[in-house]
């Protein structure tokens, strides 16, 4: 079984310790969220796990065959149209041009993009549409491990929900493993099996919350009560400095 295992991971920029002795494991089919305030080293942790940053201290074992990222900003190539942007990962995998066009179109329609949008360049797309394309690009390759770096944070609640539902479908089918970064606790509760609380300066995991109810059975009430519970948790209050409000 594939897994992502992080052991005694530390990282610093110069004299600044960003991450201090991080330990956790993500098993195949799991959704694990990292929750913490901005600037607490969440993105650094994701970049280390995905191999975008070189490791300094500790061990990272990543045995997933394929991976993809949906970034906070869509990062669409401005000189490629919607379909070619979605098919970008497939092209890198060496999929034939006909097949990648067919697969890109299929997923684009699934993500509620119109056929009239297919030839458009990113400059002609709204923020929400760009994020859909970015999501489609990450998912069309059918990655075993998906990194989500706050991809929902700039979206309105309707679109946020819609994209989350796509993720939920994949989770329900146990097709995918997700490493999810967010500062939105409610979002994390809706989607994850495990939430790791990352406290800043230096970044360290102070608490792990686990949720047993399957994602598909988590209704709004469940999410709200769990959110309320977490928000009254002492570690959460300290980490997010909630008492100063």
């Amino acid at each position, binding site marked *: 079984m594939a897994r992502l295992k992080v052991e005694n991971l530390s990282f610093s920029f110069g004299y600044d310790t960003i991450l201090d002795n991080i330990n956790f494991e993500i098993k195949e089919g799991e959704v694990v969220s990292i929750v913490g305030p901005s600037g607490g080293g969440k993105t650094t942790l994701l970049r280390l796990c995905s191999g975008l940053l070189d490791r300094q201290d500790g061990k990272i074992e990543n045995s997933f065959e394929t991976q993809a990222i949906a970034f906070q900003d869509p*990062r669409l190539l401005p000189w490629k149209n919607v379909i070619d942007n979605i098919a970008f990962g497939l092209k890198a995998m060496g999929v034939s041009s006909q097949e990648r066009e067919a697969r890109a179109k299929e997923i684009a329609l699934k993500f509620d993009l119109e056929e009239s949008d297919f030839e458009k360049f990113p400059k002609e797309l709204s923020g929400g549409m760009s994020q859909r394309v970015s999501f489609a690009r990450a998912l069309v390759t059918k990655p075993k491990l998906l990194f989500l770096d706050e991809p929902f944070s700039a979206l309105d609640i309707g679109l946020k929900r819609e994209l989350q539902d796509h993720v939920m479908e994949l989770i329900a089918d146990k097709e995918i493993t997700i490493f999810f970064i967010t500062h939105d606790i409610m979002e994390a509760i809706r989607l994850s099996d495990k939430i790791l609380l990352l406290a800043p300066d230096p970044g360290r995991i102070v608490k792990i919350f686990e949720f047993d109810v399957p994602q598909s059975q988590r209704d709004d009430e469940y999410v709200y009560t769990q959110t309320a519970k977490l928000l009254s948790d002492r570690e959460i209050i300290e980490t997010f400095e909630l008492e100063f409000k």
Partner: protein
Amino acid sequence: MKSLLKILRDFPAYLWSGWGAIASIFLFIAAWDIGNQVYGDMILPSPLETFHTLATLFKDPDFTQGLMITLRRAMVGFGISLVVGTALGLLAGFFVTASIVSRPIVTILMGMPPIAWIVLAMIWFGMGDATVEFTVIVASLPIVFVGALQGTRTLEDKFEEMADIFKVPLMMKFFDIYLPHIFSYVFPAWVAALGMAWKIVVMAELLATSDGLGADLAMARSQLDTASALAIVVAMVGLLMVAEYIFLEPIKREVEKWRD
């Protein structure tokens, strides 16, 4: 290849959009004719007379030969600027130190008036091809260099990161990520350099050679043959316009279509 077909397919529509440009050229010619009526043939020959002179010039083998010589000089100078300028610009762009070092030098090169270069080149190379080509290179190479440098310096890490996640092979990274971005900077620089090369070649010829369009222009001046002088100018401008609007502009539109 796909882009090339697209350029050809869009070409008729592009030409059709040129009516406005043609109308404004006719307006200019009309103003020119008024100038002729005010100042007389000696100062400003009429457009009609100029075009007549141009037609007879094109029948004269000496003139067409001179035109070819000028074209050759411009193309040699421009070609060298294009290849060397692009290569050096890309190279400098990939190294921070090189781009910091090269900036002031480029500013000096660009700030130096071409006429000064011509004088120096005449001392160094004498009267002939080398002087003209040298001046063309010295004037147009920095433009290409800066374009390539800026294209490379402005490459964004975020796309590279995105590509790394998908394990994009190096060749694909080059063609799909670096090239479109760099080309959108380099190509306009090439167009600007071509215009510069064409202007400089005539100026250098006028001062430093006994053949080519520039020399013909010098001859027309010494004989006070205003009609011929104007006809040569029209030929020069006409050629540049054909090159720019028939060949370069459609390519530029295709290449830059995705830009804001």
